[in-house]
């Protein structure tokens, strides 16, 4: 059998109930079950989490850094999406 370092899995840890899982790093493992066990040993040695997700690294698609400007540009010229765009007279409450 060929010696291998196994595929890479990205690791997401939920720190506390109710908050989102956050990317913390990756591990090498032969399957999802062992990836979760390795992730526990590497990323939650000091009570950093209550739940772990693992995803094969090659399953993640990402936006491209080169296109960052153009890609996110459509949201830059729409300040009216923010509540602070609107002027409300002093004295008007609960708005």
């Amino acid at each position, binding site marked *: *059998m060929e010696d291998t370092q196994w595929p890479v899995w990205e690791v997401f840890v939920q720190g506390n109930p109710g908050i989102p899982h956050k990317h913390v790093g990756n591990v090498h493992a*032969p399957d999802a079950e*062992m990836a979760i066990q390795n992730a526990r*040993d*590497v990323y939650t040695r*000091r009570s950093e989490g209550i739940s772990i997700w693992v995803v094969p690294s090659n399953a993640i698609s990402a936006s*491209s850094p080169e296109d960052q400007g153009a890609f996110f540009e459509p949201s830059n010229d729409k300040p009216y999406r923010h509540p602070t765009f609107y002027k409300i007279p002093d004295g008007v409450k609960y708005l």
Partner: protein
Amino acid sequence: MEDAKQLVAFEAKIAAGQKIEPKDWMPEAYRKQLIRMMSQHAHSEIVGMLPEGNWITRAPNLRRKAILLAKVQDEGGHGLYLYSAAETLGVDRTELLSQLHTGKAKYSSIFNYPTLSWADIGAIGWLVDGAAIMNQTVLARGSYGPYSRAMVRICKEESFHNRQGYEIMMTLAQGTPEQKAMAQDALNRWWWPAVMMLGPSDDKSPNSDQLMRWKVKLESNDAIRERFIDRTVPQAEFIGLKVPDKDMKFNEKTGHYTHGEINWDEFFEVIKGNGPCNAKRLKDRVEADKKGRWVREAATAYAAKQAKEREIA
């Protein structure tokens, strides 16, 4: 010139304090330098497990043994964070490990010294991890995102290593005269290697403006060394131990300690492979890799079997 334009944008980003991420454009020299630094750093973490692992079965009590086990496990984890960070630059972990095992890649000079007594475990945590923290808190401000984040994480964990080492030294220093002598002996042997592990002095290691500008290197070796000495000498005095440097003096004017001559010949000899334990460390590392192979094969076979069973079900 597309590259020239990209270089300007790259440097502007770093100057603005932003991090460079794996898929961003970067100069080839930047990528190469980071792979070299991160892999050497990762190798140091896992080779560093060896001198300490030597004392796990001989720790003086269960508390110390549990702590040492946890510390050595941390070092393995640090190696993993760093190999992962290096892999984001397009190198393969198998390739990096093979560079270590064939002696092509370097690791920190400090791990080529032997751990002769239990007090050495105290000295390593206090001095070696102490010096490593000085270096790593600087690297945490570096420009490459994955490396910088790994450093932040590692520094948090190293703080425990540092303190447990000092506690071992303190306990010995307050014990019987023999125990105190053991602590002083460990300090005598580890002091200079720890001072040297922060790298050659600035006149021997000119910092390239480029690496500084790219925030790969952020402070000079001598500046980091001074901080380490300033913090560590009073810690030794507090527990009644003396650093083995007859020229060590506090300079009221500068507010820093001045130290005696460093034996750089010794440092370069150890780097070249002529330290007391270079051959043993490499042999043990290769052996560990060989001995671990059946575990990797068994895990692969188990994963294949599980997948097959899921298919049938």
